[in-house]
């Protein structure tokens, strides 16, 4: 069974391993045998204006999405963990729904509404869509952060004369910050890589995945796409490793075991 699991891991990683292989390959065709080492595809990257502008669009959208979905996630996770209120199950169910809803449904329904309201779509509408789909991920990360806080700590702070606001800043926030950072990083990564919603809602300001999509049609552009993909995958893995480390540190701080993953 160990062998099977390793084989499965190889299957999972096989396509991703090919990415750097062809990104450094000195040939315009993506095929074996490899033709020798080159970094020219990477050197070309910053010289393409459409690419660099799409990178900035993506970074802008991902940053705002990360902040918005984390703030909304804090509200929802806090309410779900600490309070009992009317309609809690249906309300939380609706908020978590985008997790299982096909993205194309989210994309077309937002498109219809925005166009009908006469709003011109652009980066803001991509942010709206991305915030919606990132929120459930933020909530599931922050849920465990809030669950690990001993309510007695906050009560003690209130009893000792702190206000609710200062208790939040001085007691709650320091305890949840690893989860907070993890949520920001995960939301940023999801938004950065998301294609379908961005494709429907981005209009004249393409995000990086939308730009990539437009380049896939041109065989001569493929090595550059491979180089770009390599950088994107490296960035995603880096952000994730950081998020995972923080998440575990947070759990250890709260004296919990560090088993289990993000989801």
């Amino acid at each position, binding site marked *: 069974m160990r062998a099977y699991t390793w084989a499965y891991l190889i299957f999972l990683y096989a396509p991703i391993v090919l990415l750097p292989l062809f990104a450094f390959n000195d040939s315009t065709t993506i095929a074996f045998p490899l033709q020798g080492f080159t970094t020219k595809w990477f050197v070309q990257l910053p010289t393409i204006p459409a690419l660099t502008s799409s990178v900035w669009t993506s970074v802008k959208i991902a940053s705002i999405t990360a902040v918005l979905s984390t703030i909304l996630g804090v509200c929802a996770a806090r309410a779900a963990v600490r*309070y009992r209120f009317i309609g809690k199950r249906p309300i939380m169910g609706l908020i978590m729904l985008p997790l299982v*809803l*096909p993205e*194309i449904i989210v994309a077309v329904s937002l498109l219809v509404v925005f166009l009908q309201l006469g709003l011109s779509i652009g980066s803001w509408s991509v942010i709206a869509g991305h915030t919606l789909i990132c929120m459930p991920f933020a909530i599931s990360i922050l849920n465990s952060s809030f669950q690990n806080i001993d309510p007695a700590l906050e009560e003690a702070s209130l009893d000792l004369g702190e206000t609710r606001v200062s208790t939040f800043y001085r007691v709650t926030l320091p305890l949840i910050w690893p989860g907070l950072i993890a949520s920001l990083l995960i939301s940023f990564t999801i938004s950065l890589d998301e294609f379908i919603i961005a494709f429907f809602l981005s209009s004249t300001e393409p995000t990086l995945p939308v730009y990539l999509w437009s380049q896939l049609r041109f065989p001569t552009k493929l090595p550059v796409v491979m180089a770009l993909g390599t950088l994107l995958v490296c960035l995603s893995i880096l952000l994730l490793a950081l998020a995972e480390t923080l998440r575990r540190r947070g759990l250890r701080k709260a004296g919990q075991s560090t088993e289990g993953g993000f989801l």
Partner: protein
Amino acid sequence: MADDVSHNSRRGLLLVSPPFLTTLVLLAGPLGAIILFSFWTQDYLTLNTDFTIKNYVEAAQDPIYGLLLGRSLLVAGAVTLLTVITAFPVAYFISFHVKPSRKSLWLFLITIPFWTSYLIRVFLWKVVLGFNGVINSGLIEVGIIDAPITFILYNLNAVIITLAHAFAPFAILPIFVALEKIDRALLEASRDLGETRVATFFRVTLPLAMPGLVAATLIVFIPVIGDYITPRLVGGPGGLMIANMIQTQFLKLNNAPMGAALAVISMVAVTVIATLFVWLNRRFLKVRS
């Protein structure tokens, strides 16, 4: 005391209202709008808001829509079956045979590919499976085949392989969680009472893992129906699915109401199948998920 409860309830509602309102505006409202839209018609750019079921009639009569929906359901079913069956041993191995301190590392390793750009992963499968792709050029180089094999790209096989790869972590994680919850003492008890390893697996482990299997099935099946990139990139003409048609109606044919009707039909089909599946499980396997 009652006052305290209602105070607590108000505070909770107040706190949950920003995310709740966001979801109402960005999800519930638009979903309602899609349903409303599907009963309208559009002629190029003019929208006719008279209530009509014309789109649904057209969807039922034109065989292309039924074909695409049927194919989507078939692909989603095949991908789900393949993913869940291949994922189970992996989840089992991590839960039962990996040291507790190493479990989160394994889970992290499995989830990493999922977090990298979906678009790039799908495109890489095209590179792997293509006519001049990695498999073909590799096999020719080694001398196993003379001419490129073509049954692996631009058809449903390619779509199924690629989707099974993309949704693997979705299947592994819920199964893993269910397996982790199983009290190991139950397995020992079964062995002590004389059951073999195999019988213990089928009579104790598997039934207790069913909630995870049900969750895995749903969490793979539902999004696969809406997938649009994979059929487009590796499916070829015979591999397109209902989501591609929805996209075409919206962005190419300027027929948003027809696209909306198709989106509603897919959502209803998915909901019916998912509900039926959960009901069958409860009915015959006594699973509560």
